């Protein structure tokens, strides 16, 4: 207690820094420095990556991106992924969380089932989905066949390959979001709902007027988190398409583009530039989302 009331001195500040040192060193080395380095590297136009010799600076890498049809494709695919997968994941996980919240007896079992994808290695997940999506004998086509739908070559037809990736991303995103929504639902005081029921609100009205507004803070977190996750989709693509970006680059995401440029084409500075673009896009969109929800919350009378 003495410590809390003590006035900050040089000694106490140093002591505090010492306590913070492990965190600061790790974050500094593995997050802040690479970020700064990536920003710097994106401006090197003549650069020997191995010897670290920079011969020229400029915006050439960004202009390369601007003119690269593959980068446009990667942006297009990534935006589609975020725009479709994020709302789908949020809606589905909310629906499932509401269901689980109602029937507590089976909730534990289902919670485990939905959480499994989150803790399973993406490579294993990719392989299993690879089998599910197969043209011959795949479970997805078998199921669709029951409804008379002709078998689709999900993973080799450029028209369907992105849809296949979306399904995997939604499925994999459910687990953690359901848990978060369940936590949010548990935090809502039951009395609000009871009062609404007494006031004669039907279940839908109770949801829209009580549950949904009170879930707002956790929803913001989930929306932002899911968006960022889907902006950074890489390993699902890698595992699903055996180390390629799908047929005719149909599943080329921004992260995959970065990987391709860096490791497969040795264009290190262009890769860094694409990382910077990704960082800025994610940063701006996250801030916009948070600002919008704060505005909404203010409108709804929250604090």
């Amino acid at each position, binding site marked *: 207690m003495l410590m809390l009331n003590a006035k900050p001195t040089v000694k106490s500040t140093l002591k505090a820094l010492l306590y913070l040192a492990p965190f600061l060193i790790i974050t500094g080395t593995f997050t802040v420095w690479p970020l700064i380095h990536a920003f710097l590297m994106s401006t090197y136009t003549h650069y*020997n*990556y*191995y*010897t670290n010799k920079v011969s020229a600076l400029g915006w050439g890498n960004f202009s390369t991106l601007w003119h690269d049809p*593959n980068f446009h494709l990667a942006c297009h695919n990534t935006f589609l992924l975020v725009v479709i997968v994020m709302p789908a994941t949020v809606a589905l996980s909310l629906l499932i969380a509401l269901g689980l919240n109602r029937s507590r007896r089976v909730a534990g079992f289902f919670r485990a089932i939905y959480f499994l994808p989150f803790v399973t290695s993406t490579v294993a997940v990719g392989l299993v989905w*690879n089998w599910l999506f197969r043209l*011959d004998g795949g479970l997805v086509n078998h199921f669709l066949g029951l409804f008379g739908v002709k078998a689709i*070559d999900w*993973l*080799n*037809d*450029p028209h369907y390959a992105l849809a296949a990736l979306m399904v995997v991303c939604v499925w994999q995103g459910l687990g953690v979001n359901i848990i978060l929504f369940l936590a949010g639902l548990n935090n809502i005081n039951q009395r609000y709902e009871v009062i609404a029921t007494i006031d004669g609100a039907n279940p839908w009205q109770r949801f829209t007027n009580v549950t949904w507004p009170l879930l707002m803070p956790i929803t913001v977190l989930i929306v932002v988190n899911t968006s960022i996750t889907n902006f950074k989709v890489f390993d699902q693509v890698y595992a*699903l*398409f*055996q*180390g*390629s970006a799908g*047929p*005719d*680059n149909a599943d080329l995401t921004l992260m995959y583009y970065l990987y*391709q440029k860096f*490791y*497969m*084409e*040795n*264009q290190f500075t262009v890769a860094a530039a694409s990382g910077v673009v990704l960082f800025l896009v994610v940063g701006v969109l996250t801030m916009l989302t948070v600002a919008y929800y704060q505005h909404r919350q203010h409108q709804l009378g929250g604090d």
Partner: protein
Amino acid sequence: MKRFFRLCLSLGALLLIGTLSACASQPSSTAHQRTTVTFWHGTSGASQQTLNQMIKDFNNSQSTYKVVGSSQGDFANVQQKITAAAKSHTLPTMAQTTYTNVPNYVRGGFVTPIDPYLSKQTLGKIDPSFQSATRYQGKTYALPFSKSIRVLYYNRDLLKKTNTKVPQTWSDVAKAGNRAKAQGLTGMAFDQSLSSELDSLAQATGTPLYQHHPKLTSPEITGATHVLYDMLQAKTATTAGTDGFGNVTFFKGKTLFYSGSSAALSIMQASTPKGLHWGTAPQPSYQGKHRPAIAGNDLVLFRSASKAQRKGAAAFMQFLLAKKQTLKWAKATGYLPLTTTALKSQNYQEYLKQHPLAKAAAQSLPDGFLDPTLVGYTQYQADVNQMLDQLSSGQTTPEKGLAKLQQQAKTDVSNQ
């Protein structure tokens, strides 16, 4: 608090002592200590077991060096590890990689020529088919190691059923495909990437796909691309897609041929479904010429290695080139023997008689070719693959795809 500081201090001291002693115990070439040669490779399964045995045999054969091999995953993983380790200055003594990476490594200044450590006589033993890829800017940087060549696999049962002979030319393949299609079968299964096939076809026309100034819109390369494109369009051929390799489709027993690497031989032998019989033949010829592409991985030596380590790596390379070892490697893995003496040896000829499936690769070798060592190769290769990917999914035509590739080639290789 004091106690905590004291604890920190003693822990720090311990760590320091530990680090210092570790530094002191770094491999040095003292009389009693062996020099450690670290070796990163990308083999797995049977190849890895054979390689481990060979490393063990080398270590037992002398007392100066100790080779420590470690598998880094697959071949692509090793290359990624090298890229990362070159930056962090944690490269091993030697590694398995493709010779086409050598220009990048030389530019990065972290690879060193092998010539000072291996005699001309030893290097001269390497079969001429592999020689061209060993050198860059007049120095030897890459020693061939796990080498394979494109061959044709055929389904004996289906050939009998459709009354088809083993094709000698690509037009035989196309014709057989049309006949097969009429019976509900497919002619040819390709790998996910068609690049080796196009490479071979282009080479046969005398207009190589990989060169400093490729003539991609020439009638030769356009014609060569059409050979593959037309079969895919006619649905007499398929690409492996996410299966990666065409042998998966081939083993379903509804495809006459599979154009693949001879390195697939041992895996295919191990995974042949019951009741399916297959054989191998040299890749078909095009315009009267037979030029199958040689592929695979090589060994390189890194500059960060000490002189003693470099000498150790060279001794190990020399060991691998010995007739007994290269034959052992070839027989166990399906890769090609690396020296002319081994290829011509009675031992190997006897082996081929007993294992006729391995014959096609050995027969093809004199006609085989390797892409030249070009600056910008990896990037150009990525663009070639993308064009072929678009061709196989029907998103472009050979004419359009090659015209675009010609533009890309300018920045990829020509202006380098």
